[in-house]
């Protein structure tokens, strides 16, 4: 048992394998394992359980370094409406995550408007409209093939006029390697900047799929360059993937994880909590 198991090379190998298996970046893992050995020596740890505790604390520290606390709540605008822009590569869970956020805000008594700014993908507008109907929130659309930036513009104007508390903008999935699509995203962002007197959206949220490996780092880097990501939504954590790559992303890009997706229903979203997340890495 961990209580009496001694500390040996096999233990370190198992822990390293657990980290890599959780999709932590290999260089982050090497550094964490090196620091772990130092700390085990410095703290005179005796058992395997001691070592695991030290490692778990180190991982939690990596997740919250530079933050004010353990939670990273969504920013709110001092003057309504609060505007959120949701971005990410194809199929990661943007539209569904927006439905979940809308559900949560509606349950709390707020008025929500959704911008159906994915004007490209087949039935993308239909998909978010169905969510709007189910949740009882307004969805502002343009025609399919229309300019996404103008849909966002319309949605913000509509939200102001209707006294809505939140506008959440859905965008088409796009690979960060497609320059024209990243330019389109910057254009959407410029519309938001203009509509809010020079300020960006209150949150620009990058949705990452927990099953994604090292490419998530490149996604975060490129999206951050294009539209200064303020937070990450880590979706599909109800699967077997652990999403450990976000530790590297937080560490290197300083972008906080704000929310996690744990299923396909509107209720399946939680605030990101580092201790629970780290615990999940070792389960």
């Amino acid at each position, binding site marked *: 048992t961990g209580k009496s198991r001694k500390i040996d090379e096999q233990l370190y190998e198992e822990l390293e394998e657990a980290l890599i298996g959780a999709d932590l970046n290999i260089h982050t893992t090497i550094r964490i394992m090196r620091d772990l050995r130092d700390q085990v020596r410095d703290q005179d740890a005796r058992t395997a359980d001691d070592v695991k505790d030290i490692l778990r604390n180190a991982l939690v520290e990596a997740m919250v370094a530079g933050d004010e606390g353990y939670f990273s709540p969504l920013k709110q605008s001092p003057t309504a409406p609060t505007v959120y822009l949701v971005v990410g590569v194809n199929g990661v869970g943007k539209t569904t995550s927006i439905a979940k956020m809308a559900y949560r805000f509606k349950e709390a008594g707020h008025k929500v408007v959704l911008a159906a700014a994915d004007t490209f993908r087949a039935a993308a507008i239909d998909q978010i409209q169905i969510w709007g109907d189910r949740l009882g929130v307004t969805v502002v659309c343009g025609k399919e093939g229309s300019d996404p930036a103008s849909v966002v513009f319309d949605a913000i104007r509509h939200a102001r006029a209707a006294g809505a508390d939140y506008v959440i903008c859905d965008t088409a999935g796009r690979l960060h390697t497609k320059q024209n699509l990243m330019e389109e995203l910057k254009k959407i962002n410029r519309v938001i900047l203009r509509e809010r007197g020079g300020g960006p959206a209150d949150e620009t949220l990058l949705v990452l799929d927990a099953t994604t490996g*090292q490419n998530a780092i490149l996604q975060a880097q490129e999206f951050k360059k294009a539209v200064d990501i303020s937070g990450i939504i880590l979706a599909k954590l109800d699967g077997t993937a652990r999403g450990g790559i976000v530790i590297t992303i937080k560490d290197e890009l300083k972008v906080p994880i704000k929310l996690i997706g744990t299923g396909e229903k509107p209720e399946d979203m939680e605030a990101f909590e580092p201790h629970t997340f780290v615990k999940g890495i070792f389960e």
Partner: protein
Amino acid sequence: SLSEKLQSAFARLGGRGVLSEEVVDKALHEVQLALLEADVNYRVVKGFIARVRERATGSDILKGLEPAQQVIKIVDEELTALLGGDDEATKLVFAPKPPTIIMLVGLQGSGKTTHAGKLAAFVRKQGRNPILVACDVYRPAAIKQLEIVGEQVKTPVFTKGDQIDPVDIAQEAVAEASTSGRDVVIIDTAGRLQIDDALMDELKRMKAAVKPTQILLVLDAMTGQEAVNVAKGFTDSLDVDGFILTKFDSDTRGGAALSLKTIANKPIKFIGVGEKMDALEAFHPDRMASRILG
């Protein structure tokens, strides 16, 4: 790139007849890092490195090659061999007596609906007569999405709406196809987790009911370490016939491909390289090997 890293690591080692253990260890350390950065599964990497180490240590350095180049040559050959193998197996298998039934399965958002359309376009080019079947009754507007895709590839979509058991929809579609001259039935299913017993059961029931010619696991090329468990889950439940790796137009290294081949030992039939209906390519092991190595 890996070859640049190795060249600089070995810049001062002269070529000397055979690859020493020391040279091989040093080189394989870099290769191991490269493979992990490429999302190849940890265990698969270990096994692969052990194989290469065995083959490389003591092997003759070919005339005109630096030691580093020799190691890379061996790594590349081993990787290509692992990824490739039987050329015939990578082709789509058609039923001796129509209709050919293709079932697409996979995790949420991997690209099933999109690739159902691409496959329809692909077989139409071969002069076949496909029909698409809408068996995702859960995701909002999934049926509408497949219908729009169907229009794009001039292929009819069989649907019974979203209130009917997907297994019944699949059965009726196959029965109808047989009487209406449709010789390829492409079934789009809902995304699901391989650990969702109820939904995996649904697929098992569908397989038993329609006896597909091909069950293809559609997997995102940017999948990380879990590719092995996902593939295992679907393979254990359904004995899939092969894979379609999607979103290869990204800059993901695609190490999941090696994990799939090593663990599930089923062929990668196609790769998806874009959102349009013509963005479907055959899988090339040699190109994949150099992409994974970086």
